[in-house]
């Protein structure tokens, strides 16, 4: 497919449709909705990291004046372990039902035990304290090493690994070639082990919802999530209310990054609303968010790479252990499947272990698992390149995956843009810029699968000849702006005449959640098809008016024009003209399309990072950063750059400061943004973006997902830059000042410097 360069709206930095509402405070986030008669829900959470729940007595709480309802696990639909998996997307409802409310055991500090609804938040909180829980406190394990020891406390006795009760809940592997043979050919082999800490998605808006259940069971949910249909389905599963009785209305979302792809509050609030007969509102505090909602996994990995002296990688082996948290389901697929994918490696084994431990269940975080794996692989590649005395980008070029390369996770690539990203990085001013004292430069690449999946759209022409598009995916990355650009382009009208809305579960067809970098890819397909149907209708209407053959009508610049043999015979009929004539000419004009979209192409990125290290304080600061990515086609370049910059910012936080810290009792010791240090603006340089456009041949506009790739290479790029500055390798994240200083001050470093 060739790139269309004369587009009027596609590729323009149009004003974002949600911008005005957001900057004026008019946007309705989940906590902004209120209802008459509304009461407040609060959650009682486990103080223990691991405890059997022997009994729960809610009598005193229920007796407190102002309390309207109390729910416990008894009220939630059980999905018994022995009945087998009940999958909803990638989530097993057996784990979801135990995550929203502890059943047999409390599995982490912060695990919900009961929920109360009362006339005020303070009464609800007071009532939580009156609930008597008899716990049998059990030993716990949080870190992977502790959880996989032979005598580790077992979270789930039913779970067996290699025949024995274990905290290892699953293993996957991707294999290619013959590993042993491959390493035999290697002239240079480097093997290193790495650890990373759990890090939170850090969305600014805490989880919140307002739920009303009518006496006839009709349920309305206002909440902030990455998928109103996911909210509906999970709430239906966990409460027993049929999906047809639930209307889930997506609020404007204040960030999700994957963390809002599961429910926490909605089933509890629904049950409280049902029991009390009153609308129930629940809003998490930041502390609750940090203690009880998914960060991504902490990890422990070992990566071994072998290459020949001429710089060809002949074998690679990666072993990735990822913390699942309290219930199975860590993103091992991302770590195992993405880490080696930028490279054409003939002999490969990539294996991953899903490890349960006594902390909150992980949730998706931007390219789940992939950044963890890439960190290890890309750091080892840097060492191999150094050992080979090769430029790290040349080394990557020499081994780059390209059209025809078979990836270990299955696909044989068609046209991909990895090489282009490395070449663009090499050609950039940044890569050539000189470095000063105590400054260093690092590079790293990354891959993410991207996704398609179910999407629905309805495109309607208003009576005054403008356009309303409704889609079903919450917009967390600029999809409304992208859709407006595409629809305006196809119709040949000003993009301001296109309004794009996110429908609720009752007003638009099923659309899979916003995740996997799928949204613009998938929804633009259904919007394109809907718009093409509309254009067909418009041409037919014009033909009818002109009494000519529809084939003799073309749609251009927002109007129907007669073509040969009638060219020039009739003045064009604009969208406005045809909309006005619609009642007499066949009725309303609109079209809807629902599809399970396919054809998503993976995305590749290559990053360049410069750091400067304050060697007396151990502070590494990123001074310059360039993210190069194959973005397919940048429908709205400003938003694409925003995705790249946002991913990099999160990665720099992960690399340098973000981490969960626990007390001796296993509680999160830094459950707020003061001590859980995400970067602030002044911590970051302007992040430069180079967008490489290799259009996806299987998509009408050439779109590839762009939102997740930019987090994948960052930690390795930063680590490699710090090495370049200091001559010292780091094998653990975060590279925070005390840890950096410790390495700088280690006797062997001092000696080496002398």
């Amino acid at each position, binding site marked *: 497919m060739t790139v269309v360069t004369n587009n009027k709206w596609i590729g323009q930095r149009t004003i974002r449709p949600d911008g005005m509402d957001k900057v004026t405070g008019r946007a309705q986030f989940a906590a902004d909705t209120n209802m008459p008669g509304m009461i407040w829900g609060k959650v009682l959470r486990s103080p223990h990291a691991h405890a059997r729940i022997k009994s729960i007595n809610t009598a005193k709480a229920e007796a407190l004046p102002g309390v309207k309802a109390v729910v416990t696990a008894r009220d939630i639909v059980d999905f018994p372990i022995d009945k087998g998996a009940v999958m909803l997307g990638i989530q097993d409802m057996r784990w979801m039902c135990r995550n929203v409310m502890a059943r047999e055991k409390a599995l982490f500090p912060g695990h919900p035990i009961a929920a109360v609804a009362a006339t005020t938040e*303070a*009464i609800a909180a*007071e009532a939580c304290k009156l609930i008597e829980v008899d716990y049998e406190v059990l030993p716990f394990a949080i870190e992977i090493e502790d959880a996989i020891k032979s005598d580790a406390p077992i979270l789930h006795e039913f779970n067996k690994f290699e025949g024995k009760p274990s905290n290892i809940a699953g293993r996957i592997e991707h294999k290619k070639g013959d590993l042993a043979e491959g390493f035999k050919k290697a002239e240079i082999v480097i093997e290193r082990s790495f650890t990373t800490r759990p890090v939170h998605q850090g969305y600014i808006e805490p989880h919140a919802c307002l739920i009303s259940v009518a006496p006839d069971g009709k349920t309305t949910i206002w909440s902030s999530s990455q998928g109103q249909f996911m909210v509906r389905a999970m709430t239906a599963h966990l409460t027993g209310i049929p999906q047809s009785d639930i209307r889930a209305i997506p609020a404007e979302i204040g960030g999700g990054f994957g963390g809002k792809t599961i429910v926490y509050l909605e089933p509890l609030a629904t049950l409280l609303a049902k029991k009390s007969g009153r609308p129930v509102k629940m809003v998490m505090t930041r502390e609750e968010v940090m203690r009880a909602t998914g960060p991504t996994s902490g990890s422990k990995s070992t990566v071994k790479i072998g290459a020949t002296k001429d710089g060809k990688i002949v074998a690679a082996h990666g072993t990735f252990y990822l913390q699942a948290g309290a219930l199975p389901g860590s993103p091992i697929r991302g770590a195992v499947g993405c880490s080696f994918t930028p490279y054409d490696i003939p002999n490969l084994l990539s294996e991953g272990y899903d490890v349960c431990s006594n902390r909150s269940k992980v949730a998706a975080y931007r390219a789940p698992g992939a950044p963890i794996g890439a960190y290890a692989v890309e750091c080892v590649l840097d060492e191999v390149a150094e050992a080979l005395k090769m430029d790290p980008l040349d080394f990557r070029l020499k081994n780059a995956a390209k059209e025809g390369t078979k990836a270990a996770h299955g696909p044989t690539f068609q046209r991909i843009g990895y090489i282009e990203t490395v070449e663009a990085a090499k050609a950039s001013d940044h890569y050539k810029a000189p470095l000063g004292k105590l400054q260093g430069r690092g590079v790293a690449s990354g891959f993410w699968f991207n996704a398609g999946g179910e999407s629905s759209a309805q495109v309607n022409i208003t009576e005054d000849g403008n356009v309303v598009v409704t889609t079903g995916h919450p917009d967390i990355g600029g999809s409304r702006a992208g859709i407006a650009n595409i629809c305006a382009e196809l119709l040949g009208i000003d993009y301001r005449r296109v309004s794009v809305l996110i429908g609720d579960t009752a007003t638009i067809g099923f659309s899979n959640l916003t995740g996997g970098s799928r949204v613009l890819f998938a929804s633009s397909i259904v919007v394109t098809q809907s718009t093409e149907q509309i254009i067909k209708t418009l041409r037919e209407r014009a033909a009818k008016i002109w009494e000519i053959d529809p084939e003799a009508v073309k749609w251009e610049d927002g109007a129907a024009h007669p073509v040969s043999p009638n060219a020039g015979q009739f003045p064009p009929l604009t969208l406005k003209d045809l909309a006005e004539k619609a009642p007499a000419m066949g009725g309303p004009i609109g079209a809807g399309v629902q599809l399970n979209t396919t054809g998503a192409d993976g995305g590749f990125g290559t990053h360049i990072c410069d750091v400067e290290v304050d060697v*007396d*304080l*151990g*502070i590494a*600061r990123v001074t310059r950063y360039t993210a190069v990515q194959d973005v397919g086609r940048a429908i709205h370049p400003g938003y694409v750059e925003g995705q790249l910059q946002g991913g990099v910012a999160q990665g720099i936080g992960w690399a*340098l*400061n973000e981490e969960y*810290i626990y007390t001796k009792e296993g509680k999160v*010791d*830094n459950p707020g943004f*003061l*001590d859980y*240090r995400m*970067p*602030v603006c*002044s*911590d970051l340089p302007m992040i430069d973006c180079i967008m490489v456009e290799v259009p996806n041949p299987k998509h009408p506009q050439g779109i590839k997902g762009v939102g997740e790739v930019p987090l994948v290479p960052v930690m390795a790029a930063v680590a490699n830059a710090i090495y370049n500055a200091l001559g010292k390798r780091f094998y653990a994240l975060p590279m*925070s*000042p*005390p840890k950096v*200083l*410790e390495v700088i*001050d280690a006797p062997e470093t001092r000696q080496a410097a002398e």
Partner: protein
Amino acid sequence: MTELRYLAPNSLDEAIKAFAAAGSAGRILAGGTDLLVQMRAGVVKPGLIVDIKKIAEMTKIEQTADGGFRVGAAVSGMALHDHVSFGKVWPGVLEAVNLIGSKQVQGRASAGGNLCNGSPAGDSVPAMVAAGAIVTVQGPDGRRELPVEQVPAGPGRTNFKPGEILVSFTLPPRPKGSSDAYLRMIPRTEMDIAVVGLGVSLTLKDCVCTAARVGLGAVAPTVLLVEAAAKALIGSTLDEAALNAAAAACSAACRPIDDKRGTIAYRTKVAGVLLKRTTAIAAQRAKGN
């Protein structure tokens, strides 16, 4: 549910009366950037809040007859920043106060609140200690004055008597060749809490340091006045040996804890590094005065 009363009296006497009468249930509110956060977190649950921002003396910055400054306890960081001459005379104190939080926080946060909050990591406190500030406090038994370093009693605690309110800071006049500076180590660049904070005030005469004070924060239960460091600087030309000795004195003064914000080893080392860097800045400034 306990009831919460709010008073915003115009006079100090009224404030003291109400505050003293409320006993341990009373809380003074200056900018509220600590108090309101603590209330929201449920750490403190006052029955009475006495807002002191309507008391003229509390929000005034005045030059004293001898050329020093008196700064009201509730003066916001922004107001201090906007004062015509304060920052020229006490750039270190000003930069410490202005480091607190963000622009938004600066509009409210006060040096008085920073001190009375009792955090060993409060940014303005080491700078005030280095400056040799004297605080005026007033309670049911009248007024008294004490050196600023005698105010903190431990994390979250002060040596004030029941019913006493901090009224103002008095900073001494500056001899020629004097200046000050404050630096803190934070992992980020702003919106963070000091892992170590260090203020230096000094006077140079013909390149020789004739007077110095060093305040050190976040390395002990209270902010410290490090006299040994000052002694190492005084009489020297701030040469390497003197700086090394002063840095060693700061490291030796540390009695830190290992916590989520920093290790003992890290804090101890950083205290020395900051002494050298802060002294260099103060000396540079002093040379211009």
